[in-house]
């Protein structure tokens, strides 16, 4: 059974990721925001009655959090290390003093 403290921490972290995705405080209008809030609230209420769902829910909350965090970290690292991309054909030709042939466009 997922501890209530872990659920709170998962909830806070998911909201933090949503806040990153929606800058300028607009995350409250995010389509996912209401859904996430409802899921956690419902889970809190029914956690005594149903044994199976809280464990499942904690697992998928963790998975969704991992998804958002991994995508963000991947994006950050990629932006940091990606460099300028490839040179265009024109600038490559210019490197050796050549120009591209004129085409009829």
């Amino acid at each position, binding site marked *: 059974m997922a501890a209530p403290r872990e659920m709170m921490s998962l909830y806070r972290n998911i909201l933090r990721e*949503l806040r*990153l*995705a*929606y800058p300028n405080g607009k995350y409250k209008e*995010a*389509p*996912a925001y209401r*859904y996430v809030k409802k899921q956690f609230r419902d889970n809190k209420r029914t956690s005594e009655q149903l044994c199976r769902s809280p*464990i*499942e829910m904690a*697992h*998928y909350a*963790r*998975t*969704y959090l*991992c*998804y958002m965090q*991994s*995508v963000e*970290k*991947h*994006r950050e*690292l*990629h932006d*940091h*290390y990606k*460099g*300028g*991309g*490839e*040179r*265009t054909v*024109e*600038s490559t030709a210019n490197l050796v003093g050549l120009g591209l042939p004129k085409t009829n466009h």
Partner: protein
Amino acid sequence: MAAPLGRFSVNFLSNHIVSGSILRYTCPIVNIFKRFNSRETKKFFKNATITQSDGWYEVNLDQRKLRTPNGNLFRVPNEALALAVATEWNAQKKFINRNIMHLTSLCNTAVDNPMHLTRGVLIKSILHFMETDTVSFFIKEPPELYKMQKDHWGSLIEMVEERYDIEVPVMEELAAIPDLNPATAEKLAKFLQSQSDWALFGYNYAVETIKSLVLTLGLMDKMITVERCVKLSRLEVDFQIERWGNVEWYHDIDLYDLQSRMSAAALFVHWSNETVKIKRKSMLSSTSSSSYVV
């Protein structure tokens, strides 16, 4: 002492070995060419929202309905999945980067089915990975690595074997790879048949990403978390990192890439199996119509 290299001093080079960030220094020069590279699409909408229609959920980018690469209407059978896709689109900054929108890609594949895969073909493709599963190959040298594999993979293999009543082939030498035990193949095929069409796409994506059906089953069955699943698939890499150091722009990018893909696949499979509605649609078969449980 060697002739001074100017900007690239010896100190700088030793920093590079520690931090692996040499590209950070070459970036300012290379970046001038970025504005000539117009392959990226700008973010062309302000808001992504979801709507419901006829039991399916669609995503709207501003007023326009989202479409798949093949031009089909983008629609998914599960609300949470649609919300997650809308969040993916809203999370894009100035440019749209489809390479990291894994949930959107998975949904597009399921809707379009561009390779015209049938259930049988998908199941066969998924089972094929079992024959050369990542966790099947133990290496005796060096002994620390062998111990790591026994410790980490051992318990998961046992759990999966027990849960599905199968035998995971384990090889410790580079001999001829035996065929999959027919009883194992049959039981796994039966399990995969019980998954929805969309879930099969998710399974296929997952096994192709980490090259292991055992790890995928462990993840989908909630035996292990995504982080642990990816860690288990990268055991040798972690072993080498412990010995030789971590290279951020290779190891970390690879790690987060695997984690994003596997967590997307896990969520996709879960949400695809969650809705229990019977629909009649022609999908994944060459005959005119067939029903499937969504």
